């Protein structure tokens, strides 16, 4: 898999400076971060970082080993090596002229997303899904005029073996 997308699930000590160690490792060694999500887990002492990166096999191997070498990194899982589920959440503020409203609502319905704020001139839509789904949705909405988008980046978990 040349330069494929890799999703890493990294468990770290929940301490100040840890994120900067990880970000510094990527910038210092010329690796690329496509997206990054960090939050506490059920154990308040540790956080989960979901990081999406790209690179050939050797680079990904180095990234994983280098991450592991950081003292505050507890585990590194390459989810792309197993089966996993991923989600991303996006908030999309879109121009909602009266003539477009019905079409937008239909799309919202088709994509099983939600309108969470309505104004005279706009809707704000909440959508979750994998990267593909979000991309498709955004493409469809584009012609109506997107005002702003906020995206969380990917979060992911490995599937449990049945």
């Amino acid at each position, binding site marked *: 898999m040349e330069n494929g997308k890799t999703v890493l699930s990294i468990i770290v000590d929940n301490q100040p*400076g840890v994120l*900067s*160690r990880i970000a510094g490792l990527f910038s210092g060694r010329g690796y690329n971060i496509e997206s990054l999500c960090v939050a506490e887990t059920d154990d308040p002492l540790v956080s989960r970082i979901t990081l999406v990166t790209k690179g050939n096999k050797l680079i990904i191997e*180095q990234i994983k080993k280098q991450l592991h070498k950081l*003292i505050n990194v*507890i585990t590194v899982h390459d989810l792309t090596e197993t089966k996993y589920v991923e989600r991303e959440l996006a908030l999309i503020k879109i121009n909602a002229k009266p003539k477009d409203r019905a079409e937008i609502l239909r799309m919202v319905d088709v994509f099983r997303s939600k309108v969470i704020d309505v104004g005279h001139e706009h809707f704000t839509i909440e959508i979750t899904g994998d990267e593909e789904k979000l991309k498709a949705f955004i493409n469809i909405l584009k012609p109506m005029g997107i005002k702003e988008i906020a995206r969380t980046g990917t979060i992911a978990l490995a599937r449990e073996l049945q």
Partner: protein
Amino acid sequence: MKLTGAQILMKALKEEGVETIFGYPGGAVIEIYDALSQTDIEHVLVRHEQGAVHAADGYARAKGQVGVCLVTSGPGATNTVTGIASAYMDSIPIVIITGQVPTSLIGNDAFQEVDIVGITRPCTKHNYLVKNIDDLAKTVKEAFYIASSGRPGPVLIDIPKDITTSKTIYKAPEKINLKSYNPTYNPNLKQLAKVVSLIKEAKKPVIFAGGGIILSKASEELRELAYYANIPVTTSLMGLGAFPGTHPLWLGMLGMHGTFRANMSIAECDLLLAIGVRFDDRVTGRTDAFASKAKIVHVDIDPTSIHKNINVHVPVVGDCKATLCQLNKMIKQQIPDKNFPDSKTWIDTIQEWKKTTPLAYDQKDIIKPQYVIEKLYEVTKGQAIITTEVGQNQMWAAQYYHYDSPNHFITSGGLGCMGFGLPAAIGAQKARPDKLVVDIAGDGSIQMNIQELATAVQHCLPVKIVILNNGYLGMVRQWQQLFYERRYSCTRMEFAPDFVKLAEAFGAVGFRTSKPEEVVSILQQGIAINKPVIMDFIVEKEENVYPMVPAGKALTEMLLV
């Protein structure tokens, strides 16, 4: 009983067996210095904080233990960065304690505040800002453990001033338990079995050993392997001394300024046992041509070293000593009676390379720098601890002094940091008062931390400085000569101090000569004096270090004269 943070720090350092600290005081650490004065820990007062770190580095290498330095916040802390980076590149275990402004002021651009934890994140193995006095004792214990275990390295502890003055009860954990840090010491036996069968079949094996052997104290085991299986040995700059430099199986150092026979052996070998090395670009030359006919085995405790620069056939993650012990045992069981493939032709080929293309120079009326090193080797009977500055002096020290034991050659290998040698010599001398310690220097490098001569004099550390004075930043000049048509842009040191008078001004002793026939007697006189001594040898100005593999070329593409 409650102790202040400063007292807790001292108690924690004592628990780690610290006997000596290299440092420089200031406002943020004044409480720590006060507590220090109440202990029997010795303090070496350097003249610049960079010197403190290099000295702790030299101490750590000469003693095989963690070196410690202590500096104040702000400029004291930033002055340590070069030293830390050098120790990091060479995997040297040191603990750096920096003062910090009080916690209430952190982030306010307070007087003498810098974010040293942020600055040193990429050049420490790990670092800490202690925000709670109850964490202090534990942090010190962790820092020493991290610095000295696995692949060693520098660890920095930043301690705010209010932490040093507030009080609590001393409480340190019995054992360090870091769930996120667990170096692999013992090798995978299946991998080792593969190594044994490769050794069994190899007709032209070579061992390439590095600093990892010295760090893990595995020289004995390395020698055992080489002698038993009759395998020639080369080392990186960091590995010098891991294998005796006088043994018939010794190939000399490899790489950019490696010996002809070492570089040829790498190109021709069918099995390369790389142990405790990281395949630096100064060693490999063009990587696709490196050991291209060989199966490569790579033993290293740091998994990130493996497959980083060179693709290897059999990776073994493990401590060099543990791995070699196990490997030797397996080899002796499985290949009895020295029943190895006949390596005579291979050894003969190597001997032939040595004969036709040895390290050589021509001593006439002007002193050759190589001659000085060769005579230093003879006069000291090869027993001195040698530190170096950086440049040609460093390479000649590697080529012409022969190291029979580990921890006797101390150099800034990875960072290549000029100004390293003198403070490192001071640290080494502190660690080994019984030893003769000599800094081999260039006239450029020695000026970078010459102020440390005062440290040596104050603390009665009789280090010797041998300056190979060529009036140039020689190594850069060499590149300009070879690759920039002799355009010596800014490498001529048009002015240098009178090093003899300079030595005297510092309360040391100075000698100078430009006559080849005086070299030996000056070395003898200088070494006999129980004080710091500078010996300034005016040498051939445009002598070059050969062989030389131009950057980016294959190891076999050596310039020989």
